[in-house]
């Protein structure tokens, strides 16, 4: 089912002001994701699919499509491996309708 849904197409409808080079969310220690986290729930829970599993078991994060919901930070409380801030003022997603 998931394969049929192209979330990029959905995100393409949104307006963003990207803060280039200053991601507001970061993975603190990539080794923790790779070696200590079996579920890697962020890779399917994130509603903007910002987290991706790589072939080698690593998790990568690209925040450009982020909807600023906070889910990734909350589901990662055991390892607390998500450094989460809001984007700088005026940056990030800018909802037209909300």
């Amino acid at each position, binding site marked *: *089912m*998931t394969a*049929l*849904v192209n*979330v990029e197409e*959905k*995100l393409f*409808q*949104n307006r963003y*002001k990207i803060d280039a080079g200053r991601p507001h969310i970061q993975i603190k220690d990539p080794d923790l994701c790779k070696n200590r986290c079996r*579920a890697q*729930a962020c890779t*399917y*829970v*994130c*509603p*903007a*699919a910002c987290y991706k599993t790589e072939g080698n078991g690593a998790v990568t994060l690209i925040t450009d499509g982020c*909807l*600023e*919901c*906070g*889910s990734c*930070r*909350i*589901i990662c*409380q055991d390892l607390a491996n998500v450094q989460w*801030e*809001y*984007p*700088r*003022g*005026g940056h*990030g*997603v*800018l*909802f*037209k*309708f*909300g």
Partner: protein
Amino acid sequence: MKERFDAIVVGAGPSGNAAAYTMARAGLKVLQIERGESPGSKNVQGAILYSDALERIIPDFRDDAPLERHIIEQRMWVLDDRSFVGTHFRSDDYNKPPFNRYTIIRAQFDRWFSQKVRDAGAMLICETTVEHLLMDGGRVVGVHCDRLGGDVMADVVVMADGVNSTLARKAGFHPEIPAQNVALAVKEILFLPEETIQSRFNVGEEEGVVIEMIGKITEGLVGTGFLYTNKDSLTIGVGCILDDFKNNPQRTAPYAMLERMKRHPSIAPLIEGGDMKEYCAHLIPEGGFFAVPRVHGDGWLIVGDSGGFVNAAHREGSNLAMTTGRLAAETIIEARKEGWPMTAATLKGYKDRIDDSFVMKDLHKYRHLPAVLEKSPQFFSTYPELVNRAAQTMFTVDGGDKASKEREIRSSFRASRSLMGLMTDAYRLWRATR
């Protein structure tokens, strides 16, 4: 910024706007700080506006507020994969002004509300993220922003910074939100001609319908779906407890769940041809009564989603947000008038006010519901399936006699859930909602 304020309000959603407006009208020197490029640009809601809470703040809001449709019909659907059993409540009484509730589009509504706040005399600064509170010992004395030269001081800070409650969390006023206590919801807005919406939903101009749904659409996760009619658009969304999304062995992404829901044979014809213009996601604090943190202290108050003020059972949030914002403002106004310092003891007046209002009374009434639902996924999978199968059995005319059909339905319930299980579920649900 060298200027000092009577109060700083962080956030320009319904709770922050209610607080800033009420204080500015009373003559307080108010600074409101919003991280979006304009108020509303970071805010997401279904969205239903309940008139009463806003009327108590701006009695004549209907004169110029951007309202979509007033609701004349409420539908509740329990869905199986290919069917639904539903109740509809429609009344012409809901067509008599003043209307009880409306669909709204938050980006437009919040901008309108914010203009009222500025007209009342508050200073608004946008595109500015508050990074943390400024403390003097255990007392909040201001905020630190990523602009304005950093620090701004005030007698009291009202945190209306939304569900993530970033400021209070960083200050250590309360811990991180457990994943069991928030729902993750995703939604889309789909544009359609007004006349198409009116004929599909059997309503006239400016009349609207809301559909709330439970059942197989959430794949057994604790959650609900919704479909709301705006003027020339529909809002469709689905939300489930975040912990359920995380622990779902199917690893279903929220957007995949939404996409599947849109293809349900009872839903697809209603939204067909809709032009999707935006996709949003948002957390909803659904922990209820026991999840509300301490919401006042020396120099600070928490209002709206940031304090977990959502009545999940009734899908109410923005009215609790506006009410807590207003009550926080009234507490501060009274303290100033009496010359009391903005200490925890003074600001406890806010807690007393919300305890005495529908906000905490309603949360208290449903205090056991989150725990019951967490332990009862059958309400979201087994029962919807059984109810739909029962309806299909009774309504299908196939030469079988009705008494045998009834026996078949009864045994299908018992096969899926023991008699004891059925009775326990009924009792627990009754206790949690009585």
